């Protein structure tokens, strides 16, 4: 079996990405890696009792300037396009949080006074969950509170060598660089949406993102019975496959609220997720 990556995203927050990703991982018949790339607020670990294998700190580079030898030419500030270097009385001052680790300042300094140091922005935890029929390799990124470099952390997760052939990625909400880092180059993108005006508005943005990234896309409509036609009309018009619809179920909501896995506690949902996976598998091989 070849490697397949399924990314789960949405435009709007709170549509059910993590719930869907977890329950999908639970419902497949093979070992699967679940990559939690919602690094600002990761939640996957709350639904399992994972056995943690290791935790790795993720660092980014920032410039350290030898200010004693600095002649105050200002080239470092001039070449920093992120405003991370200012000059205070001709002495450069670096704002680490604004730095994008691009290396422009290092190249710009005529006296080679800038070296790059590492600083931590978060960590990646490697864990596994053994289930009766398969196992889930849970890889989760967590950004340190106050840091802004979500995509740097997500890039590290995506670079990891992972044994399992099937990868499911839980992406952050939105359509900006962090989400792109999570879903880029996936074999299939599942967009989880809800049939409300906000849901539709943000789904359109997510579809635009999918088109820009040239990703095969399908949609899950969650809480399908709370709204009506506009979302389905839009999907029909764009010829985007509806992989499944899940109606609002107070029992499902309660189960989720307790941090429990739907297909485990409410077995009537297992065939639904199995069917959805079969559809995704079929769409991926087209």
């Amino acid at each position, binding site marked *: 079996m070849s490697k397949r990556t399924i990314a789960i995203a949405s*435009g*709007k*927050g*709170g*549509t059910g990405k*993590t719930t869907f990703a977890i329950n999908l991982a639970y419902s497949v018949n093979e070992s699967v890696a679940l990559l939690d790339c919602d690094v*600002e*607020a990761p*939640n996957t670990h*709350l*639904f399992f009792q994972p056995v943690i294998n290791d935790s790795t700190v993720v660092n980014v580079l920032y410039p350290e300037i030898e200010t004693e030898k600095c002649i105050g030419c200002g080239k470092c500030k001039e*070449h920093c*396009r*992120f405003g991370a270097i200012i000059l205070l009385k001709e002495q450069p001052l670096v704002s680490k949080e604004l730095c*994008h*680790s*691009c*290396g*422009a300042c290092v*190249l*710009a300094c005529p006296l080679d006074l800038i070296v790059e140091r590492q600083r931590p922005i978060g960590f990646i935890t490697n864990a596994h969950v053994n289930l009766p029929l398969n196992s889930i390799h849970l890889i989760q990124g967590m*950004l340190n*509170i*106050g*840091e*802004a470099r*979500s*995509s740097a952390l997500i890039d590290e997760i995506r670079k990891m060598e992972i044994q399992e052939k099937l990868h499911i990625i839980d992406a*952050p*909400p*939105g*359509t*900006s*660089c*962090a*989400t*792109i880092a999570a879903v*880029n180059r996936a074999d299939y993108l599942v967009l989880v949406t809800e049939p*409300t*005006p*906000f849901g539709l*508005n*943000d789904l359109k*943005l997510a579809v*635009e*993102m999918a088109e*820009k*990234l040239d990703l095969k896309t399908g949609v899950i409509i969650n809480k399908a019975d*709370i*709204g009506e036609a506009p979302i389905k009309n839009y999907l029909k018009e764009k010829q985007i496959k509806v992989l499944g619809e899940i109606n609002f179920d*107070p029992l499902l*909501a*309660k189960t*989720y*609220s*307790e*941090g429990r896995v739907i297909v485990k506690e409410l077995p009537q949902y297992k065939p639904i997720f199995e069917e959805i996976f079969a559809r995704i598998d079929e769409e991926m091989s087209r």
Partner: protein
Amino acid sequence: MKEIAVVSGKGGTGKTSFVAAFANLSSSCVIADCDVDAANLHLMLDSMSVEKKQPFYSGYLPQFDKNLCDNCGMCVRKCRFGALALDEAVNFTPILCEGCGVCSDVCPQTAIVLKEKRVGEIISYQTRFGPLIQGKLDIAQSTSGKLVTSVRREARDLADAANIDYLFIDGSPGIGCPVISSLTGVDLAIVITEPTVSGEHDLERILKLCNKLAIPALVIVNKYDLNLDQTRKIKETSERLEAKVVGKIKYDRSFYDAMSERKTIAEYFNTTTALEVKKIWQEIENVLT
């Protein structure tokens, strides 16, 4: 003028719905929609006219002159974001470009010129509750923090000039760059949460961020009747992190109806939600005076 940021940690808890309701109930306000990835407030507020649209520029996009390029590959080697590759010619993937300009700096042939990059826009609306300044980030862009800062500045200038009482900021989910920019320097953060294990976990992270930024926070538990046990845990977490739970709202379908009908949840006069939201707003006003 008091600045209030509505944030959540977890997505989908009801931030935008509450911002609209507070705007409705307040004496006078300006609203800043800083959920720049997926701005939604304009959908909620009725009778709106667009006053102006301004493109927002941040960072640079390199332009490659194929005539000057000799395929040395220096730009490819120095780009740390994987936006450049060398096949028969230099291949540029704009969606991966962070706009750092290193490629232009290192090109020995000066074949790369940097142009200012449009990353989004700021739209100013007039709504029935007051002016709405909305930031919209173009797909796949970064530097959302800068856009949020610009939207806030525009909204603040407007509020100061017109002697407005409140500036409401509709924030993004998460705790990253746009949220940090939405929180810095505000008078109060209102955190909307839900009684789920995920909600409580994310609440802890957003409250820690508020503490780090020294912003006082109040918490509202939405859909609280979904899980009373989790609601209790949320109260404990909030208190441990020095935030008060200022109100609880039952799961109410009027949140969805309000979206469709372009009303605020405070306008469904016969619902318990409307009464509770009014009480919450009064409490917020008390806290701010």
